[in-house]
């Protein structure tokens, strides 16, 4: 109940799990983008100086385009990422989980002008904090959500050992519990894993590290190894 997953059903009838990104990481991505734009203005400003007033006019157009359209173009052509978002592993999606499209991207980035009010993204921050999907005003109106990009899975495989029949028939949930233990125990200290394995000592018929090994063997058996 406490996690921030958001589930979306695709047309294929399968649920997509998205993890909306919170205010801190989004502020950092925003800051990276701001600094990047600032660097571009500096470089462009110095380079265009030699063209005098013509260069100044060009600079103003560049500033205008970058201030308003930099996020839009990146979000469209980089599949929902700006350089700052890419750096921090975020991406913008439509509410239905598809990559953000032109209209929504433009809406959310024009409305940034309001999110920024009254000072330093004040309205945006307040809205993000009150919204379960961490949406700022622009996201609300555009129907978009900023999520963590998919990461490679970190769950470990069940360790490969010999398979061994369990002494008694276990129900499905019990089988799952054993398999889950085999997957997760590798991230625990051995002592803690042994402690957990001892809970089911009557089933494994052994204590301590031997119990862990027995559970691994059962897990392999449940997965179909013979």
């Amino acid at each position, binding site marked *: 109940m406490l996690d921030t997953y958001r589930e979306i059903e*695709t047309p*294929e*009838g*399968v649920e*997509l*799990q998205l993890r909306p990104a919170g205010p801190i990481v989004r502020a950092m991505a925003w800051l990276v983008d701001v600094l990047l734009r600032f660097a571009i203005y500096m470089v462009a400003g110095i380079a265009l100086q030699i*063209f*005098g*007033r*013509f260069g*100044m*006019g*060009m*600079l*103003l*157009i560049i*500033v*205008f385009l970058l*201030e*308003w359209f930099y996020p839009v173009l990146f979000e*469209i052509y980089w*599949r929902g990422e700006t350089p700052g978002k890419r750096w921090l592993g975020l991406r913008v999606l439509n509410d239905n*989980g*598809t*990559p*953000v*499209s*032109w*209209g929504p991207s*433009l*809406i959310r980035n*024009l*409305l*940034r*002008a*309001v999110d920024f*009010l009254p000072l330093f993204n004040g309205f945006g921050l307040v809205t993000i904090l009150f919204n379960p999907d961490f949406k700022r*005003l622009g996201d*609300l*109106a*555009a*129907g978009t959500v900023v999520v963590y990009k*998919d990461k*490679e*899975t970190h*769950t*470990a*495989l*069940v360790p490969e050992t010999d398979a061994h029949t369990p002494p008694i028939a276990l129900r*499905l949930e019990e089988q*799952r519990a054993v*398999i*889950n233990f085999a*997957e997760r125990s590798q991230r625990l200290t051995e002592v803690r894993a042994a402690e957990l394995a001892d809970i089911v000592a009557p089933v494994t018929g052994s204590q301590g590290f031997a119990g862990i090994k027995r559970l691994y063997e059962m897990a392999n058996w*449940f*997965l*179909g*190894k013979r």
Partner: protein
Amino acid sequence: MNQQDFEQRNTPVWTRLDEMIQAIGKRHGKDQRDAKQVEFPHLYRQVCHHLAIARERQYTTHLIDRLNQLMLRSHQYLYSARAGNFSRVMQFIGGGFPALIRREQRLFWLAMALFVLPALIMGLSVYFWPEMIYTLMDSSQVSQFDQMYSPSSPYIGRERGSDDDVLMFGFYIYNNIGIGFRTFAGGMLYGLGSIFFLFFNGLHIGAVAGYLTQRGYIDTFWPFVIGHGAFELTAIVFAGMAGLKLGFSMLAPGRKTRLTALIDAARVSIRIVYGVIGMLVIAAFLEAFWSSIKSFSPEIKYIVGAVLWSMVLLYFIFAGRRHAD
């Protein structure tokens, strides 16, 4: 079927899909579409099915995560946005935009009133009581306007260089389109921001026009503004209208929830904003490169201005009548 058999039987599908995603990521345009047409959706749907089975049978987290990632990534490609195509843009310019404005005309008249009434009232009061202008501006700003448009000022009659034109073009793009965007975005505050920008810009423009007219700078001021005003003033009203649409959707959502009403309204509003951007670019171009030319007599400026105004009016009254929507 136990998990190992399941994995063994279906791994070819998963690796094939994985390869395809990686290949699509590297290609562009037509290749990408070709890949989408046949094999890709088929494989994707198979993987969706496998994921559902894996979840239902409670296979290991590792496998479910893997399938989930695979499905997520393919989903992103399969449903990625189509690039806006040229014919749709032309259709919008050719009639979609004016038809949209006419469909929302109640909002248009409201935005218009919020802009024009303050301009008229302020303009007339400054014309009859010139000191009224100091309610809006301080004396340095006023004397700046005096200098800019005074027939006796050294600037008048002197042609600007073309690089000055570019500088001003840049400034008008930066400043005016920015104002247009803020007028729209302000609508998100229950319409208040849009009302503020419309009202304040109306007051300001009215005050300047009233003041300069009263000072007798008619031949320097009006020929300058008449041409680009056709696009600029109309566009600002449209931007306000788009913002008001957002505001009203939240105030009076009707049978929808406030959020869905807002999202639906934003979809329409943003199309008005597309038009506003186009109009303001035209306006900035005219203002920088046409309005500033001083070698034409005021009469010619007025004639061209009248032509531009009638073009805008006729476009929004008549273009796209055949668009049923």
